[in-house]
């Protein structure tokens, strides 16, 4: 589904990614772990299409199509979703109205008419129930005054509504207590199936107890230096990142 080959990227002439290779197939859950500043969030943003980074070398293919020249909304229309570490607050626009806009914009890109209101409401109700979201929450302004947990749950709600093929979860566990973490992880697991894929980006192993990855990759200084199964995550949790760095020397 997602194939990244020898990806190099920089911002203001500072190299951040220095040759990333990653192959994610439908039905798989991958995790990228790494210390702060290793380039994890940059990789997530680049896959989603953020233009502040320059791709200097390599390619990003999504379902065998090069997407590196597409803008973020075009990638979204093809099924790429990024759950943000710091979602943006949009005062005056309710969660419901926002998600309606997002869904109908995506439908428009496919030449479809707006989703009928009744169908939309049914879908919203269904997904909200799935994530244990209170109906009152849906009429609040998007992310405005939301707690950390509410913001993340709202991200996963949007993911549930948009039904992406590839969901990238950038530090979804940060700022969550254990109960919120379980709800969010549970939601992701319910949405996971053989036709879609999840890329979890995290500093800590904690989230991976709940969203169990098929593959774990360690990103250090812009390169994936080690890949393995979920056991690798446990090893990192016990020993930290230093032993890998030492191994590399």
């Amino acid at each position, binding site marked *: 589904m997602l194939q990244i080959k020898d990806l190099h990227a920089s911002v203001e002439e500072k190299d951040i990614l220095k040759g990333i290779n990653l192959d994610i197939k439908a039905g798989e859950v991958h995790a990228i772990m790494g210390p702060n500043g290793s380039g994890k969030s940059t990789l997530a943003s680049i896959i989603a*299409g953020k233009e*502040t980074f320059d791709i200097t070398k390599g390619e990003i293919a999504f379902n065998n199509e090069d997407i590196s020249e597409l803008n973020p*909304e075009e990638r979204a229309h093809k099924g790429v979703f990024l759950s943000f570490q710091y979602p943006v607050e949009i005062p005056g626009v309710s969660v419901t109205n926002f998600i309606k806009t997002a869904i109908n914009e995506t439908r428009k890109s496919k030449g479809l008419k707006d989703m009928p209101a009744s169908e939309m409401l049914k879908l919203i109700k269904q997904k909200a129930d799935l994530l244990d979201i209170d109906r009152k929450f849906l009429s609040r302004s998007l992310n405005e005054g939301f707690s950390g947990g509410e913001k993340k749950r709202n991200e996963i709600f949007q993911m549930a509504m948009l039904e992406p093929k590839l969901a990238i979860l950038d530090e979804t566990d940060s700022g969550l207590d254990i109960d919120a973490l379980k709800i969010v992880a549970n939601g992701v697991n319910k949405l996971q199936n053989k036709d879609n894929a999840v890329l979890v980006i995290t500093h800590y192993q904690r989230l991976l107890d709940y969203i169990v990855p098929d593959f774990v990759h360690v990103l250090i200084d812009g390169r994936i230096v080690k890949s393995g199964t979920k056991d690798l995550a446990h090893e990192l949790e016990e020993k930290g990142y230093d032993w890998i760095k030492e191994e590399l020397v």
Partner: protein
Amino acid sequence: MSLKDKLVSSYLAFEDHLEDDSPIHDIRSKAINVFEGKGFPTKKEEAWKYTSLKGILNDDYCLFPKRDNDVELKDVRKYFLHDIDTFKIVFIDGVYSSFLSETTHDSMDICLLSSALSKSKYNAVVEAYYNKAASQDSLTSLNTAFAKEGAYICIPKNKEVEKPIEIINFATGNEAALMLQPRNLIVVGENAHVQIIERHQSLTDHAIFTNSVTEIFADKRAHVDYYKIQNDNSNASIIDNTYIEQQRESICKVHTFSFGGKIIRNNLNFYQKGEYCDSILKGITILKDKQHVDHNTLVQHIAPNCESHQDYKGLYAGHSTGVFNGKVLVEKEAQKTNAFQQNNNILIDDNATINAKPQLEIFADDVKCSHGCTIGQFDEDALFYLQTRGIAIKEAQALLMYAFANSVLESVKIPELERRINKIIANKIGVNIGFDV
């Protein structure tokens, strides 16, 4: 003949026509002299540096329109906030329309300035308040010289007015360009509460030049909630001169919604005369084409322990220009003042301009004052967020503009007004975010 000469030479005839020995005869005579001395302001004056009136002074304005064209309710109904849930004082070309107005009430005065000036029972109030807060600048003086009609609202002590009062000025100008000089006097008694909406609406393509003066007096613990809707067509200009005098513990709020017009100039002045006053000035400006708006605010902190909050947001497209000239003056006696001023602008097009000039003059030593001003484009992170949800960049920008302007609406306390303004904003910006849900 220039407009100034025409005005000055018309004055005597105008005064002659007034029926009585008006109690304000002297005030009028002095005012016309001031106007004659000063004339219309020019860009040479510091306060008018960014706003030129030249473009609207050349029309041959009719100064004393007769009301010969009735307005059908069905044509203007859309400009009213509500059919029954508001009081309405409606003027057509400066003349009161009893047909369109709705002022049925008791225990307070919601009537006409002309009545207040001519009936003896109002003498005491007129003498105590009329022209007492207004300044001596040339445009205010021009209004003072010619004003004979407007809203007169006097709310007695402890009265909570149960529904908002709309003051609406329609200009038909069917025959020619028209100059209007409406004058409102609003006296709000101790612990009384009132909500007022003021709107000027041209119904013609002819040039309309409105030079209005509103004086508001808020007694102790009074609450005045005032909304100005400026969404006029591109041949209508307004100079709005508003003066608010506050006594102890009063709270006065003015929201100014500037969405359309040729030249809009708001001279909004607050004078805090008692302790523990709160003055709140909010504005949303959304302009395009060659529209021009100039917000010229003054908050004069005279007494100690008062607050003022200013929050003006502007979105400028096309060749539109904006000015924010906000002055906070803290007098020597006004210790423990908290004065805040915020002015944020987004320039949507390269040809749009904003001139922002915050001024703080502080003569007391124990005060907290701040001002912030931003002129920017869109937040890239926010745009990226919306794009990753499949929302194309144009729509994403519109949503962000909507959110930017919307934050000022939170303090609008009339739900129907909030809904209307919200709709106008969405319309202006071109967002369709399904207000039905």
